[in-house]
C-alpha cells in the first residue's frame, strides 16, 4: 500500500460522476425486540456525510450512535429506510455481497481493539488482505507499510497481549486502512486509552482524513476527541439533533 493508493478518495472527489455525499442515510429506523417489546433505537434518521470529512458522532448513552455506525458499516440491517454508501444502496445487497462490500469499502476501529489474539500485529494487519488477490509477499509489504504509518514497524512480530492498549489500537488503525477503504468507522477508539495514547490515535485519524482524504465517522463520548473532527453529529433518542461544523483543532501527537 502506497501513499498514492491511500489517496483514492481524494481522486474520487475529482470524479465529476461520483455522488457528492459518500454516505446518505434516509429515514433509517432500527427497532430492537426485547422481551416481546420493541425498543426504537433509531427513529427515521436522515444524515449525509461528504467525502473526506471527519465526523464525530456524539450523544448520550442509548441515543443510537453505535447502532447507526453498525448500520452504515453493513454490520447490521435497518428495519426501515435506506443507507447509500458511494451510491450503493446497502439493502439491495445479500449477506455475502454485504460481506464483500465491507471488505472493499469499510475499515473498522473498535473500542476494544478487536485484534485476533493468536496473530501477530503484522498478521492482524494482513487479515483484510487475505480476501484480495495480492500475493503473500505483497500482503506483507502492505501490512508493513501500514504499520509504519502508525509508527509500529518495530512491533510487527508482537502479539496483541505484548502490546499496550494504545499500540493495540494503532495496530487496529493499520488494519482498518491497509485495504485502502473509502470509509473508516471508529467506535469509541479512544475509550479504553489514556490521554497520551488517545491523542496518538486521534492524531492518526486526523492525518488519515486530511492527508489521505479518508471519510471517517467516529463515535465518541469525549468532547476532546470530538474536537479532532471537522463535524460533530449529535444524536438523541434515535433522532438527529444537529450537525455542528467546526474548524478542526489540531491534535498534538506525542512523541
Amino acid at each position, binding site marked *: 500500500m502506497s501513499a498514492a493508493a491511500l489517496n483514492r478518495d481524494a481522486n474520487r472527489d475529482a470524479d465529476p460522476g461520483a455522488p457528492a455525499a459518500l454516505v446518505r442515510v434516509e429515514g433509517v429506523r432500527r427497532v430492537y425486540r426485547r422481551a416481546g417489546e420493541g425498543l426504537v433505537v433509531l427513529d427515521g434518521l436522515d444524515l449525509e456525510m461528504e467525502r473526506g470529512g471527519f465526523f464525530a458522532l456524539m450523544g448520550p448513552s442509548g441515543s443510537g450512535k453505535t447502532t447507526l455506525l453498525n448500520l452504515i458499516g453493513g454490520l447490521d440491517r435497518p428495519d426501515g429506510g435506506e443507507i447509500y454508501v458511494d451510491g450503493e444502496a446497502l439493502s439491495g445487497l445479500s449477506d455475502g455481497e454485504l*460481506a464483500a462490500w465491507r471488505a472493499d469499502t469499510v475499515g*473498522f476501529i473498535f473500542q476494544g481493539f*478487536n485484534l485476533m489474539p493468536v496473530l501477530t500485529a503484522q498478521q492482524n494487519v494482513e487479515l483484510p488482505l487475505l480476501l484480495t488477490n495480492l500475493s503473500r509477499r505483497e500482503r506483507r509489504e502492505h501490512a508493513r507499510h501500514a504499520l509504519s504509518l502508525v509508527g509500529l514497524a518495530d512491533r510487527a512480530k508482537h502479539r496483541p497481549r505484548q502490546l499496550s492498549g494504545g499500540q493495540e489500537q494503532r495496530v487496529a488503525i493499520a488494519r482498518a486502512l491497509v485495504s485502502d477503504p473509502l470509509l473508516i468507522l471508529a467506535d469509541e477508539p479512544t475509550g479504553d486509552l489514556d490521554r497520551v495514547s488517545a491523542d496518538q490515535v486521534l492524531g492518526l485519524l486526523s492525518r488519515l482524513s486530511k492527508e489521505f482524504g479518508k471519510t471517517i465517522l467516529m463515535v465518541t463520548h469525549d468532547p476532546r476527541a470530538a474536537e479532532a473532527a471537522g463535524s460533530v453529529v449529535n444524536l438523541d433518542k434515535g433522532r438527529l439533533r444537529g450537525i455542528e461544523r467546526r474548524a478542526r483543532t489540531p491534535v498534538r501527537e506525542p512523541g
Partner: protein
Amino acid sequence: MPWSLLWRHLLARPLRSLLTLGSLSIAFFLVCFLRSVVGALEAGVEAASQTRLIVQSAVSLFVNLPTSYQSKIEGAVGVASSCKLQWFGGYYQDPSNFFAQFAVDADRLLDIYPEIRLVDGDEPSFLRRRDACLIGADLATSFGWSVGDSIPIIGGLYTRVDGTPWQFYVAGTYRSTSPNVDGRTLWFHYEYLEQSLETGAAEGPQGAGVFVLSLDRGTDPTLVMGAIDGMFENGPQRVQTTTESEFQRQFVSMLGSVPTLLGSIGGGVLFAILLATLNTMLMAGRERTRSMGILKALGFKDRILFGLLIGESLVLCLLGGLAGVGVALATSKPLAGFFDGFGITGYGIDLGTAAFGLALAIAVGLFAGFAPAWTAARLRVVTALGAEH
C-alpha cells in the same frame, strides 16, 4: 481460505489440542485393532476347508476319543485319509512363551494339510525320528530355533514323570498358505506321545482329541458325516462329525460372543471419542465467537468461517486418525505374533482397515465440526463482536 488461521487456532491451546489428539489416536488405534481381531477370528472360519471333516466327541471337545475309532472311521465310504490331532498344551521355558503344539500322525500330516509348505528341512527327516517335529518359520525366528536343534518343551497337559521337559528335534520349518492353518504351531509324532504314556514315562489323557479326515474327490461331505456319526450311535462314545469350517465356527463361538463384544467395545470407543471431540469443538467455537465476529466485520463470508471451524475439526481428527492408524500398522507384526500364540491367525492391519480408520476419522471430524461451524456461520456480527473473549 485463511489456512494459517486454522493452524494458529489449533495451536492457540496446545495442551488441549494435544490431549484431544492423544484421545483420538488411541480411539482410532483401538477401532483398527478391534476390527482386525474380529477379522482374524472370522478369517479362520472363512478360510477353513469345506471338504475336510473333523470328528470329535459328541459330549465335548475336551473329551478324547479312543484311537481305535480311527480305523473304523477310515472304513467309511468317501474317506481318503485320517489324522489324529491331540492338543499338547506345553510351553518353552516360561508359560508366557506359549504356542500351539499338536501330536499328529506324522506320515499323514502333510497329505491332510497341503497348506503346510516346508521351507527348511524335509519330510523324510521328520518321519525318520520319533521325537522329530515341524515348526512354523515365524516361531523358529521368534525363539532362534533352526533345523537340527533339540528344543525342550515343558508339558502342560502331558507331564513327564521325571519332571524333565519333553525334547523335540526340529526336522523342518514351514509356512502356512492359508489362515485356517496356524503358522506358529509345533507338530510332532503322536506315536512319541503314545509310547511315553504306555511306558509310564509320562502322564496325561489317553486317546485323540479329534480326527481330521480328507475326502475322496467328489464325495458329498454330508453323507460321510451322517455315516460316521451313525457308526458310533450306540458305541461307548458318540461322535460328532462336522466340516472344518463348522468346527472353526464352533471354536470361535466357544469364545462366547467375543466378536460381538469386541465390536461393541469398538462402537463404544468411537461414540465416546465422537462426544469428546464434539465437546472440544463446541468449546473452541464458543471461545472464538468474538474472533468470528471480527472476521465477519472485516468481510470474511459465512462459508469461509464455516470452513475454518469444520476444517479445524477435520484436521484434528485426521491427525488423530493418522497417528492411530500409524500405530496400528506399526504394531501389526508383533501383535500378530502375540495372537498366533493363542491360535488366532491372520491378525493384521490391511489397507481396508487403515482406510476404514481414516474414513471414520473424517466422519468424526465432519460430525464434530458441523454444529460449531454452523453456529459460527449463522452468528450476527454485532452479537459476535459483543461476546467476551
